[in-house]
C-alpha cells in the first residue's frame, strides 16, 4: 500500500499537478508564521533571568538547527529510496534539499556563534555540539559538489546518494554530543518526554519552527520544479538535435 502510494508520485506530471498549487500556500503561510513568530519572540517575550535578552536568538537559531539536521535526514531517506526502489523523483528531491539544508546549517552556526559571545564570552569553542554541526555543514558542501559533478556527467548521481546515506551517521552524533562529551552547549531542552522551556518562550518557538519548516518545504518544491523543468528542456533539446 505504502509502496503503491510512493510509486504513484513517480510520474513527474502527477507530482507537478500537486506541487504547483501547493508551493504558494507553503511559501506564504511559511513567511506569515515565521514573521509573526519572530515579532512575537522579540517584542512580546520576557527577558530571561540568566541569559538576558539574548534568549530571543533561539527563535531563529533552534528552527535553523532543526532544519539543518532534518534536511540531511531527508537526503538520507531520499537516497535510500533512490537506490533501493529507483524512484525517479527521489534523487531530484535529495538534490533539492541540499542547498536549503546547507543554508540553514550555516544560519544555525552563525546565530549560535553570535549568541555565544555575550553568553559564554567567546564566539566559538571546539566542543562536540559545535564541531559536529560544523561537520554537517561541510558534509552539505561535499554533497552539493558531488551531485553537481555527477549530474554534469549525466548519470543518476549514485555516488551522491551513497554519500547522503553515510553522512547520516553524523545526525545522531549531533543529537547526543551534549550527553557524550563535556560541552558549553546546554543539554536538550525539548525531548519526547517534555520541555524545560517556559511556556512564554515555548509557544512562539513552536510557531517559529512550523513557519521555518513550511518555508523549507516551499523551497524544496521550487527547487524540484526547477530541476524537472531543466530535465524537460534537456530532453527536448536532445530530441531536436536528433532530427
Amino acid at each position, binding site marked *: 500500500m505504502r509502496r503503491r502510494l510512493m510509486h504513484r508520485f513517480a510520474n513527474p506530471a502527477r507530482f507537478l499537478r500537486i506541487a504547483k498549487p501547493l508551493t504558494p500556500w507553503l511559501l506564504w503561510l511559511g513567511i506569515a508564521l515565521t514573521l509573526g513568530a519572530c515579532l512575537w519572540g522579540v517584542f512580546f517575550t520576557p527577558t530571561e533571568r540568566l541569559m538576558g535578552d539574548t534568549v530571543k*536568538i533561539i527563535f*531563529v537559531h533552534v528552527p535553523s538547527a532543526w532544519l539543518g539536521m532534518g534536511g540531511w535526514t531527508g537526503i538520507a531517506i531520499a537516497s535510500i529510496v533512490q537506490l533501493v526502489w529507483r524512484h525517479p523523483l527521489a534523487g531530484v528531491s535529495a538534490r533539492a534539499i541540499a542547498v536549503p539544508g546547507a543554508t540553514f546549517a550555516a544560519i544555525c552556526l552563525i546565530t549560535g556563534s*553570535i549568541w555565544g559571545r555575550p553568553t559564554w564570552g567567546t564566539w566559538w569553542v571546539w566542543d562536540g555540539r559545535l564541531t559536529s554541526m560544523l561537520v554537517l555543514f561541510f558534509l552539505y558542501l561535499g554533497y552539493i559538489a558531488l551531485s553537481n559533478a555527477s549530474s554534469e556527467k549525466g548519470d543518476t548521481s549514485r555516488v551522491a546518494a551513497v554519500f547522503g546515506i553515510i553522512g547520516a551517521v553524523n545526525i545522531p552524533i549531533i543529537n547526543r554530543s551534549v550527553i557524550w562529551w563535556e560541552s558549553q552547549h546546554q543539554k536538550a531542552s525539548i525531548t519526547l518526554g517534555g520541555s524545560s522551556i517556559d511556556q512564554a518562550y515555548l509557544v512562539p518557538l513552536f510557531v517559529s519552527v512550523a513557519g521555518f519548516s513550511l518555508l523549507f518545504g516551499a*523551497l524544496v518544491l*521550487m527547487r524540484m520544479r526547477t530541476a524537472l*523543468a531543466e530535465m524537460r528542456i534537456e530532453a527536448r*533539446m536532445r530530441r531536436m538535435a536528433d532530427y
Partner: protein
Amino acid sequence: MPHAPFIIASFVVTGVGISWLVIASYLAMRRAEASADELRQQP
C-alpha cells in the same frame, strides 16, 4: 555588554539568508519553467 546588537545581527543574518534563498529559488524556477513551456510550444 549590551545585547541588542547581537540580537539584531542574528535576525539580520537569518533574514538575508532566507530572503536570498527564496528569491534565487523562485527566479530560477520561473526561468526554467518558462523556457520549458516555450520549447514545448515550438513545432
